């Protein structure tokens, strides 16, 4: 019997706002414990929530980017449960009227080789809603401690349909979602800072069946790699249980990324009854066309759309776009430079960025924003090379110099004495004659048919030219002279 897995992902993305979602104390990560609280965050007696406009803008923008339907009216509900990290012992969330419905995440699976683009799929979403984050618990031997800095941070809950079937698809989904949210300026999606969290719902069924099997919720998937590994492990576990005749239990399991194992969390002795009801302290949200339109204009091009456009507009192959596109700063840099460099030069620009710029940035441990080479500089460099004013080896040197100190490529090349001099044909002619005259052996070999013998003359010519002769012209000149011998 062959089984297929059915996977749905629930991803929580923290929205990057200055203040919290229902009160205006600052939001942030890495602050001293309990320094980002106010009476509302702590749920002191008498406090009330007030919505954060920017959080609404961000979730609507995310919804637009992912092709969701934005609800014309939505409201807030209280989700009630007791837990020490939840100050009010209810979470303000959205139950039956979420702000975004439907939507799609386009994913790209790994190709047969690293530089070959893999298959693209579209994973449908169920909904996206806005809610508030909870505080952070840390555990000691006999006590736990609570830090409420994170409590009240705006959180998007993105729920996919159970439409994925492999751990790799889940990995691709998260990668794509993450890049898209970063593109939109909605979140930094740093999983180590809890800005993106993922729970997976996994079940299996015989291949070809249409029903859904017993669902297991997998939690504590702390990195995108752990999401993939955890799901893969869980699918194997479920298949093993079924194949030896056991029954799967609907449960929540906790994944241990280091050990690569999972275990069942507490059984449902106290089944949750969230007793949802509309929050009487908050008013509904009405999203009209004007609001949506304003946000639409601020939506960036989606990553895969950009990838396709770079290919069609600039003929940039996957080897290069796969490097540029995941980093929208880098792709913006590329496009700015490519436009300035002019038609036909975009591939060269792409190569310089994907190879040389990234290498230099990596070695210097600098972010793109700190690079002293601007898109203008890079465009100018490519133009110089194309015009023959700078030869390839020299260009690499000029690039390194510009990376270190900045400056215009023409100036830097001149300063380093690397500008290719337009060749004086008389001088070139006499260097070639001298070189031929000095190497009778090579001449004889060439005349007897050995093509490669010509290379013996090039060294001395280049030496005489102090490296600044155009190799193409040197070759032409030599051949002309040799033909006349």
């Amino acid at each position, binding site marked *: 019997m062959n089984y297929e897995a059915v996977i749905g992902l629930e991803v929580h993305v923290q929205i990057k706002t200055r203040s919290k979602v229902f009160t205006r104390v600052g939001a942030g990560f890495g602050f001293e414990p309990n320094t980002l609280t106010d*009476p509302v965050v702590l749920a002191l007696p008498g406090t*009330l929530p*007030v919505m954060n406009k920017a959080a609404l803008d961000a979730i609507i923008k995310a919804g637009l980017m992912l092709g969701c339907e934005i609800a014309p009216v939505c409201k807030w509900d209280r989700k009630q449960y007791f837990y020490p990290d939840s100050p009010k012992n209810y979470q303000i969330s959205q139950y039956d009227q979420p702000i975004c419905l439907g939507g799609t995440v386009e994913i790209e699976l790994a190709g047969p080789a690293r530089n070959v683009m893999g298959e693209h799929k579209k994973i449908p979403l169920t909904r996206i809603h806005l809610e508030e984050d909870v505080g952070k618990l840390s555990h000691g031997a006999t006590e736990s401690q609570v830090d409420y800095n994170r409590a009240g941070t705006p959180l998007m809950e993105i729920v996919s349909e159970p439409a994925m079937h492999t751990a790799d698809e889940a990995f691709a989904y998260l990668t794509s979602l993450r890049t898209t949210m970063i593109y939109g300026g909605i979140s930094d999606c740093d999983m180590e800072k809890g800005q993106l969290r993922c729970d997976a719902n996994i079940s299996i069924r015989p291949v070809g069946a249409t029903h859904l099997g017993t669902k297991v919720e997998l939690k504590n998937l702390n990195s995108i790699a752990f999401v993939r590994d955890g799901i893969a492990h869980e699918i194997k576990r479920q298949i093993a249980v079924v194949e030896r005749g056991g029954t799967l239990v609907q449960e929540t399991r906790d994944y241990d990324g280091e050990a690569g194992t999972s275990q069942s969390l507490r059984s449902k002795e106290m089944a949750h009854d969230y007793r949802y009801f509309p929050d*009487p302290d908050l*008013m509904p949200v009405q999203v009209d066309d004007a609001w949506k339109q304003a946000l639409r204009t601020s939506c960036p091009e989606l990553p895969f759309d950009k990838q396709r456009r770079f290919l069609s507009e600039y003929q940039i192959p996957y080897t290069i776009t796969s490097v540029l596109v995941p980093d929208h700063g880098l792709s913006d840099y590329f496009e700015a430079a490519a436009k300035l460099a002019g038609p036909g030069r975009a591939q060269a620009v792409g190569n310089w960025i994907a190879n040389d710029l990234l290498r230099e940035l990596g070695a210097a441990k600098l972010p793109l924003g700190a690079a002293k080479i601007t898109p203008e500089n890079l465009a100018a460099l490519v133009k110089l090379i194309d015009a023959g004013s700078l030869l390839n080896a020299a260009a690499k040197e000029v690039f390194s110099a510009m990376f270190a100190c900045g400056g215009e490529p023409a100036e830097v090349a001149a300063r380093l004495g690397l500008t290719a001099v337009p060749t004086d044909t008389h001088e070139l002619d006499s260097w070639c004659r001298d070189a031929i005259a000095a190497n009778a052996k090579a001449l004889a070999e060439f005349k007897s048919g050995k093509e490669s013998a010509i290379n013996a003359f090039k060294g001395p010519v280049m030496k005489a030219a102090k490296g600044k002769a155009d190799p193409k012209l040197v070759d032409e000149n030599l051949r002309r002279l040799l033909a006349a011998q």
Partner: protein
Amino acid sequence: MSVPLHFQTVAELSAQLASGKISSCELTRAVLARTRVIEPQVHAFNSFDEADSLAQAAASDARRTTGRSLGPLDGIPVGLKDVISVAGQPLTASSKMLANFVSPYDATVTEKLKAAGAVLHGRLNCDEFAMGSSTENSAFGPAHNPWDLTRTPGGSSGGSAAALASGSAIATLGSDTGGSIRQPAAFCGLVGLKPTYGLVSRYGLIAYASSLDQIGPFARTVEDAAIMLGIIAGHDPRDSTSFKTQVPDYRAEIKTRRGPWKLGVPKEYFGAGLDPEVGAAVEKAVGFYKSQGCEIREVSLPHTQYCLDTYYIIATAEASSNLARYDGIRYGHRSKEAKDVLDVYQKSRAEGFGDEVKRRIILGTYVLSSGYYDAFYLRAQKVRTLIRRDFLNAYREVDALITPTSPIPAFKLGEKSADPLAMYLCDVYTIGVNLAGLPALSLPCGFTAGGLPIGLQLIGQPFREADLLAVAQAYEEAHEWKLKYPAL
């Protein structure tokens, strides 16, 4: 015989303060002295801080000498129900759960009173978490009615009423979710106003039922109530349910709006259960308005019989959620018997909450629990729409409604505390107003043969408190009830 300072009105005292006849320190000392004498009998306060009040009074006098007086409330001792937050002061909700809680922030109404220069005097006793109609649910002991110490001053804002009636404050604030300002005002012979829902900010008010709660003033006169309302009303960006509306100069408006008005008498409010003396006093008041040229019309609010049930579903549901935060984790009482987190919750709450609070939490949790939401909460919210429609329909024909505030005068302490349902039935005339979000006030309209005050309720149209106060003023200025004081 002149009226002692502690029984005078805000209007009278502010004039004397302005003319320099008295100082705030003198007035505050008089009120504090009165408080000390009265408190052992009345127990209107959970706590009061004499040094702090006198310091505020001194600051008021200092302002006045430099010509920087802040208005009619500057230097006047005002008491706040112990559910309204004042920074640095206890905020107990009359509950063991918060017995040692000191709030770090000011409610919006507190900020407004401070900006008006009021001398904040004390934390006033109430039913625990504002749940009750007699102040017998206070964890710190009930308050007593200054007119008859064996009786309740009403609830839940019993302390606010008792303090003012007995002269331990010149004005007070309470909160009203189902009648908790109006009924104590009726029991204690005072003016008590519940504003339109959304007129006064709830930020800093310990929430009981979020969609019903409002803060409002107790005062000796309609004019004083108008002064207080003018200070506390207004949009607050920290309260998302607060309305953006123009706040008129209520005190000036009541002088210019003269009627006559069309007044509605809802027939459902004059049926079984109404004490004959109360009924007679209210009828006489209706007769007064008629004699002044007002048209009196009988109206019907057909869903009145469902008000109590609708209220007890909605209020307890919201309360069960609002009180979930009292868990002994970040503040409040934490049980010493707690071995694990579950214990912290269950035992702290069991030890911290009194019986009535527990009952309402249980009822509220039940009506929201899985499978019951549609049948109870959702249905109650629909019936609420019908209740509100009844009022708005009546207002197509009349300007305001006139009813008794309470079916009975102040009852004896202990008389109703064994049967919650009997206690709930006290609220029949006040509850519909909260469900509909309307403004309403109670003002004195007589006494029983036994000397107990009787309250007249006037119910107004949304955000038309100026009219409501004017209708009340017309009655008050023709009667002498405001000049009666308890013999205490």
